[in-house]
């Protein structure tokens, strides 16, 4: 029952940096979006854990988690719509296909 808070932080940090790594290295727009979701999930873990273990008196962290999940769902919906629009325009969802504008 008593898992120390360090374990959770290690997990969320790992998740965060996997997300950042994926965002930087993936060449597919949907995969990049999934990487962003990993980052947001690591944030949710952080908030829930800090609230549950360190500050159990109030529920600010849990509320933040709920709102963050809702907002990230909205963000994903818009991002997916835009990716579909990219696919319609370019017939591809690879990053190197959307390089019309460069220096």
């Amino acid at each position, binding site marked *: 029952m008593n898992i120390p808070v360090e374990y959770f932080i290690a997990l969320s940090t790992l998740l965060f940096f996997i997300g950042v790594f994926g965002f930087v290295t993936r060449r597919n727009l949907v995969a990049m979006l999934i990487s962003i979701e990993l980052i947001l999930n690591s944030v949710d873990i952080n908030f829930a854990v800090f609230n549950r273990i360190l500050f159990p008196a109030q529920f*600010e962290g849990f509320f933040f988690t709920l*709102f963050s999940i809702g907002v*990230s769902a909205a963000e994903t919906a*818009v*991002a997916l719509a*835009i990716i579909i629009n990219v696919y319609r325009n370019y017939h591809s969802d690879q990053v190197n296909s959307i390089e019309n504008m460069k220096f």
Partner: protein
Amino acid sequence: MNIDYSQFLNMIPEVTLMALLVIVFIADFATSQRAVIPTSNGEANSSSRAWFNPLVCLLMAAHIVINIFPTTASVAFGGMYYTNPSVGVIKTILALGALIVLIQSREWIQRPDTQFKEGEFYILIASTLLGMNMMVSANHFLLFFLGLEMASIPMACLVGLDKYRHNSAESAAKFVLTAAFSSGIMLYGISFIYGAMGTLYFDDIAAKITATPLTIMGMVFFFSGLGFKISLVPFHFWTADTYQGAPTTITGYLSVVSKGAAAFALCSILIKVFGPMVEYWQYMLFIVVVLSITIANLFAIRQRDLKRFMAFSSISQAGYIVLAIVGNSAMSYTTLSFYVLVYVVANMAVFSVISSIEEHNNGTVDMESYNGLYKTNPKLAFLMTIALFSLGGIPPFAGMFSKFFVFMSAVKGASLSTTSGVLAYSVVFIALINTVISLYYYLLIVKAMYIKPNEKPLPWFKSANSTKLALAICTAGIIMFGVFSMVYSWIDSASIASM
């Protein structure tokens, strides 16, 4: 549980904006039957909803008039929402920027091929503005986050509004992915601040925050997330592509209003919440400001596409805006708001000209098409020159005063006997040198318009009345905000009253 509904009286700007949004939505919904039919030649319904744009502009003007007198400081909803005179001033400035965008958008949005999304355009603009208002008057990180997302998600839709154009789709994808990524980074920072402090209320955090490794890390992550939104230099890679691909009107909106709101939010959070850690964030700001101004200026010189050029110019202007925060006093709010106000009118003037020329030039915005513009369209070229002079900071225009005030605010209270004081002076010195560089590339456009010979300059055309009105407002602002000091003292009295 009962909610005290009288609390909504503390948030008049949001309530009027919400009313505007609902009215526009109903108007769009009720009349869209006739307007939605796309015609190939555009003759049939080109004027079927001519009243729509003036209606929205009038509503936005009414919103400004209702809220132009700053309210006294008050809080609502258990301290989550707060407002004070300087927040009221920045909200009015942002609404003014949105009004100019709405006025000058008419020529573009009522074109036959874009007309069917007119209602969406107004609703998305109003909802981003509502999000920005929430963001600047948040007193709790949750409300701040919600405001930020409310501003950036509809903004992604706006960037991709021209959905059949390749570049617009591409820039929308780039914008939405970086926006989501940056808000993820920002949230990661906020989660560490919560872990260290146990609360998310700004006042509670400010009361007990100290510089521990955890809070410094939280602050740095938070700052980088917001740096993406303001497009400061290490986080600026999306800017040029998004600005180039977005519809020109939206680019103007993105570069002034959205940037101004995020910069004000950054200012108030750094000064209020992270105030005790000032020696840490000041150094961070020094580096970021120097990088933004210098690198963006160097990149701007080599741009041939005017919208891309304005993107780099706006990154460097963002550096000047953030320079105002360095001073860490009431004057920071004043100079930041004043800079944003002047930047709104100057930049919107440039974008009105760009978008007007784009409409009459088959959608091209490269600098070659401006060669010899003076010969055929002297008035437009003259207004563009005034706006560029103001952006560059040439004396009689407002841009010079706003830059001067920002520099003054940055070195306020800095003494040459401390390291940070010396650094503040040297950052201001570098910014001064960069003003000269920026003059060079702003004058490149002026040179193209007045001096460069052109066999076939753009033929004479008559701009739409709405564009003329927008340009008149912007030019009046550029000339008057600098000369009449009462605008500055109005903002200043608001900032002093809210400290």
